[in-house]
């Protein structure tokens, strides 16, 4: 986003990547985006027993402008979808999204007219977290996995290359329903 994105590929960029990743992962500020049952488990994670403060992120930001992680906790209805996108747009880059619970990830058991069948129709998702609702331990695991992802996130030229590679792979990939053979 800043000058670090302009660096040429090489030793310097890799060092900056490591430093930036370390700094970013260590101070994630989640936006409150509690919707349904999962929101209660999200609050539980922040409260006494599970104590998200151990990872330096117990402070949930009320304003999306001050947050860089959106935990979409719960089912997203068609009516809520534009609001969710707006909140996402208001967050400053870099930003990450955890889709908490099956409803947010795929619509879950509510395969009907009212629910968006996966929040990835609206915002890009970094971590899909299964469960109905996921246990607080699972949310913490998802957060730690996201930390890991952030730590190794490329910048500048490397980022562009990684995106191009990902797109290429995605274009070549076999659609899920057409996969054959050993299905694991």
């Amino acid at each position: 986003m800043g000058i670090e994105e302009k660096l040429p590929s090489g030793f310097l960029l890799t060092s900056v990547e490591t430093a930036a990743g370390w700094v970013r992962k260590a101070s994630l500020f989640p936006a409150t985006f509690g919707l349904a049952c999962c929101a209660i488990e999200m609050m539980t994670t922040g409260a006494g027993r599970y104590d998200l403060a151990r990872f330096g992120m117990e402070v949930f930001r009320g304003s999306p402008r001050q947050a860089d992680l959106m935990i979409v906790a719960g089912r997203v209805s068609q009516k809520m979808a534009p609001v969710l996108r707006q909140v996402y747009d208001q967050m400053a880059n870099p930003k990450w999204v955890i889709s908490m619970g099956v409803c947010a990830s795929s619509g879950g058991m509510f395969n009907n007219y009212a629910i968006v069948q996966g929040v990835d129709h609206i915002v890009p998702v970094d971590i899909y977290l299964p469960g109905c609702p996921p246990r607080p331990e699972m949310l913490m695991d998802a957060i730690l996995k996201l930390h890991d992802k952030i730590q190794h996130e490329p910048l500048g030229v490397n980022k562009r290359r990684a995106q191009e590679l990902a797109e290429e792979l995605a274009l070549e990939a076999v659609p899920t329903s057409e996969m054959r053979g050993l299905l694991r």
Partner: protein
Amino acid sequence: MSDGNIPATRTEIPVEVVGNRQGMFGGRGTGDTSGFGGLVAPIVLPGPSSRPYGGWFDEVADELEGALEEQGLDPADAIEKTVIDRGELTFHVRREHLLQVSRTLRDDPALRFELCLGVSGVHYLSDPGRELHAVYHLRSITHTRLIRVEVTAPDADPHIPSVVSVYPTNDWHEREAYDFFGIVFDGHPALTRIMMPDDWLGHPQRKDYPLGGIPVEYKGAQIPAPDQRRSYT
């Protein structure tokens, strides 16, 4: 044949047929190989009950009919039928008299149903002329009683008078029934959608509105949405 055992003349009890059930196992779509495919049985809602209703039901019915008569309204005209089923009392009220009946139910000291528990819409797709039912549950805290009032309207003219002037609590409930079933409550202060977005098309909980699910993809397979699957009902 003595006088004592002449069979009684059959009176035609009006029953409400809300559909037909075919076959024996509820399967649809695929060929029925059970041999019961030709079986057709009507789905009949519980019919009207005759006096005495038992318990406090008679008292409430008497009071209501008396109070309506006092107001110059023929009870037989206002109340289509009275049904006792599973220990619950249901008055089927003609929609043009709903407001007066509900006001009487609330205000008459012997009835005093102060608390309205909202309205629940039911859509009987195959009950021509009476497709939409609005079901009100009324609770009397004074007498600890619970009754049900049912009103019908045809799909072609989905109008039912609003009872918000009697029970303000029905404000949101009627908006919900309008949103989901398209029942227009005449006289409601602001009948707008409440659950669905303002620009939504159609009324999603009607029986002719699809569930709206999408096929679910798995690795190597795809299963249709819940309302498209083969099913037994």
